């Protein structure tokens, strides 16, 4: 059982849906980013997705691209991203942290070294966008062996024939990307997402969380209502990018979390 498994067990017991929030580590700078992450659990976030900045985020839209650029320009590194996770754990908080990003910074560090450091820093799971099941030997299997969840994205192009391949070796939860496209694009309708979630749940016992394009508490509620929870990323990152005060960002996150929890 990881912190992620524990969290879903608790939410199920409470009859609540999960709210997952994504922020880019080091955006707009290390200190601000750290303050935001430390505030997320108090704002109702059940799982934190901590973005690992990368120069070439080929599956991300402009909002996340710019966030990554801001973070890198402010000197964010893999070590300082792990520092943010350590800072949260140092407060005694047990909110699961999923590191989300691209493979090269991890590969560059060395998979074994990275897994050891990530686990020690209090990271619970990984979402690595450019590692499909075909490349499971690279990081997915070593990560599971090291006790980290490896969370896979399922998409509208993942048909029934391919779904078992995607679900094998997936743990923690399944992240259903509700549209074909990049992060921050237009949202899918809950009425369209529901059947897709059901299709995935027919083949797995893992919780299914839905993301991409959710911007309002109402949308978070609607999407969470047809799944096990909702993810919001770009809409939060956009506010951080505009330079909104941390308290305002967290108030917005609180509203989204309340929406998802009502779902």
């Amino acid at each position, binding site marked *: 059982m990881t912190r992620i498994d524990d969290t879903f067990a608790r939410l199920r017991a409470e009859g609540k849906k999960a709210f997952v929030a994504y922020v880019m580590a080091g955006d707009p700078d290390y200190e601000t980013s750290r303050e935001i992450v430390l505030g997320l659990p108090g704002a109702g976030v059940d799982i934190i997705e901590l973005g690992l900045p990368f120069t070439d985020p080929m599956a991300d839209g402009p909002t996340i691209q710019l966030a990554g650029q801001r973070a890198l320009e402010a000197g964010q590194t893999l070590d300082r991203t792990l520092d943010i996770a350590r800072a949260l754990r140092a407060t005694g908080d047990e909110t699961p942290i999923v590191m989300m990003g691209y493979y*090269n*910074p991890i590969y*560059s560090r060395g998979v074994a070294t990275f897994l050891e450091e990530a686990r020690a820093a209090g990271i619970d799971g990984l979402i690595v966008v450019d590692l499909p099941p075909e490349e499971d030997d690279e990081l997915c299997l070593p990560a599971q062996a090291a006790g980290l969840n490896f969370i896979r994205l399922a998409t509208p192009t993942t048909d029934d024939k391919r779904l078992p391949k995607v679900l094998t070796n997936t743990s923690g939860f399944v992240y259903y990307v509700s549209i074909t496209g990049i992060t921050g694009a237009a949202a899918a309708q809950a009425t369209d997402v529901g059947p897709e979630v059901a299709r995935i749940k027919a083949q797995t016992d893992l919780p299914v969380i839905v993301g991409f394009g959710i911007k309002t508490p109402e949308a978070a509620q609607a999407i969470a209502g047809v799944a096990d929870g909702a993810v919001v990323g770009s809409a939060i990152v956009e506010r951080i990018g505009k330079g909104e005060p941390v308290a305002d960002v967290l108030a917005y996150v609180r509203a989204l979390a309340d929406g998802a929890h009502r779902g």
Partner: protein
Amino acid sequence: MPDDLINSFMTGPDEKGRFGDFGGRFVSETLMPLILELEAQYEHAKTDPDFWAEMDWLWKHYVGRPSPLYYAERLTERLGGAKIYFKRDELNHTGAHKINNVLGQIILARRMGKTRIIAETGAGQHGVATATVCAKFGLKCVVYMGAHDVERQAPNVFRMKLLGAEVVPVTSGRGTLKDAMNDALRDWVTNVRDTFYCIGTVAGPHPYPAMVRDFQSIIGKETREQMMEAEGRLPDTIIAAIGGGSNAMGLFYPFLDDKDVAIIGVEAGGKGVNEKMEHCASLTGGRPGVLHGNRTYLLQDEDGQILEGYSISAGLDYPGIGPEHAWLHDVGRAQYVSITDAEALEAFKVCCETEGIIPALEPSHALAHVLKIAPDLPKDHLLVMNLCGRGDKDIFTVARALGWDMQG
């Protein structure tokens, strides 16, 4: 020739799309089903005589193949050493080798029922070739091009527009080929149903590196036959410039198992392969990493962030290299060297003045290496350089670099 397949350099990639440890399929899940479908379709087409009959007809009547293997007599005399031949792929329709591959991919796209073609381009040669073939077949064409490249390759931008393509300037990053490829991938992930991504080089996720190599291999196949006809034997050395490495892979591949043929790839050394990374020599100055769907040598910092690189040549301005080149480098079958901007410009001038051929800046890099090694080789040493593109597109860049006034 090796006696068995185990010793062959021509069996890659394996079923995971790997050349040794390089290559692979490092893409998001949304694209994975598309890539698998493409692989299946390509595997089918590869053994379909109708597919190759269509290719051969278009290569001959639309592209103008075979391109000549030309004895560069004055250059040979000037250098006083190896006998130098140019493989004249700059004479192809659209002025470069790029169209060899584009035809193959567009025919495949048509077979797959795709109606919208996207491409990335650096120097604009691949963009022009894609726009050209799309116009011929009445397909919608969108070309992603770094904003910096749009500026330095204006003639090609205009050509693409004349051919009916939409050119999208990419402003993310430094606005070069790498960034164009990112945005093309973002387009593809969004428009999965009707869109075919026509990649211009031997990089990207499997099956692209193998497929593009196979289409470009016409260069090396013709060279073998033409050299046998001209000299009665195979060349001693073959040389080509490398950005992603498609013209080089096309020339090299049919010679990989001819162990007496020396193979040399020339990377862009920019201002010199130094710590400031003002170059694009991935093999000389980079290390293995994962970008744009494959593992290969990349210019990157110690934290795995990709560096921009630099070259006067937009076509070589890419921080990676095709995975098969990375493998050939590691196993030692090919040698990879780098040439600076200044050396390439000098070779550009030499080619104009001694052979009456204005080369593109990309093959000027390969020629610069020829200028370095040919004088010390014996007169019966047969050397083939792939003159993979013509220089019309580069005259403004060259004029600026040499400080010439184009009006005067």
